[in-house]
């Protein structure tokens, strides 16, 4: 089974949209990036970014993608470490949720000046990673990623290679 890369990319782009809560006049920025990466080695399979100021095929775009690759690797390593650490799973930054009859842990991390949030797609070799600026509240990031993970039923059980 192969990924439909075009649809995956559009899905990730759709996750970038900001919140605008008119009930309390609260707005967020767009997510900075939304990334589908492998849980095995942290490699990026697909990504979307809201940084439209970076011209395509420019040195800045290459640097930007390299930064995403680096961050994905670091987050995957941290995720892997935390998945094997029961102590971490009862911390403030771990949200266990029930999905597709399995338990998925959603983790929040502070990464330089960014807020990161990652969760495994149930029973798969894939992780979904959101990166946002530091004004984007962690609690809201968790709600957003949980909803997105629940939409990704096509990828439940997806194994690489």
């Amino acid at each position: 089974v192969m990924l439909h890369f075009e649809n995956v990319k559009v899905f990730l782009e759709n996750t970038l949209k900001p919140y605008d809560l008119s009930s309390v006049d609260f707005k967020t920025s767009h997510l900075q990036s939304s990334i589908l990466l492998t849980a095995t080695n942290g490699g990026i399979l697909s990504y979307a970014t809201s940084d439209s100021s970076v011209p395509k095929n420019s040195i800045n775009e290459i640097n930007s993608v390299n930064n995403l690759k680096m961050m994905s690797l670091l987050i995957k390593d941290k995720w892997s470490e935390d998945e094997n650490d029961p102590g971490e799973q009862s911390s403030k930054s771990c949200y266990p949720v029930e999905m597709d009859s399995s338990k998925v842990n959603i983790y929040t991390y502070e990464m330089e000046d960014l807020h990161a949030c990652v969760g495994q797609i149930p029973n798969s070799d894939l992780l979904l990673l959101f990166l946002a600026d530091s004004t984007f509240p962690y609690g809201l990031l968790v709600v957003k990623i949980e909803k997105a993970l629940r939409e990704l039923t096509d990828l439940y059980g997806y194994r690489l290679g």
Partner: protein
Amino acid sequence: DIRGTITFDSHNNVIESTGVGSQRFEDIDELSQVALDAEGFALVRGHSLLVHLYKHDDMTLAVYTDA
């Protein structure tokens, strides 16, 4: 009358914040421990402000008004 709001989750992480709420994140740990009535409400006073609390479905809303 509303000076600000904070909504936070069961892990005491912020979901939204407005007005004075955005400067009062340090209140969350204490507010999360306030005993709520059977319907999920409580009222507290501090820092010349009233904080009206309501918790439902793991989300707590704190609304700040003048005392």
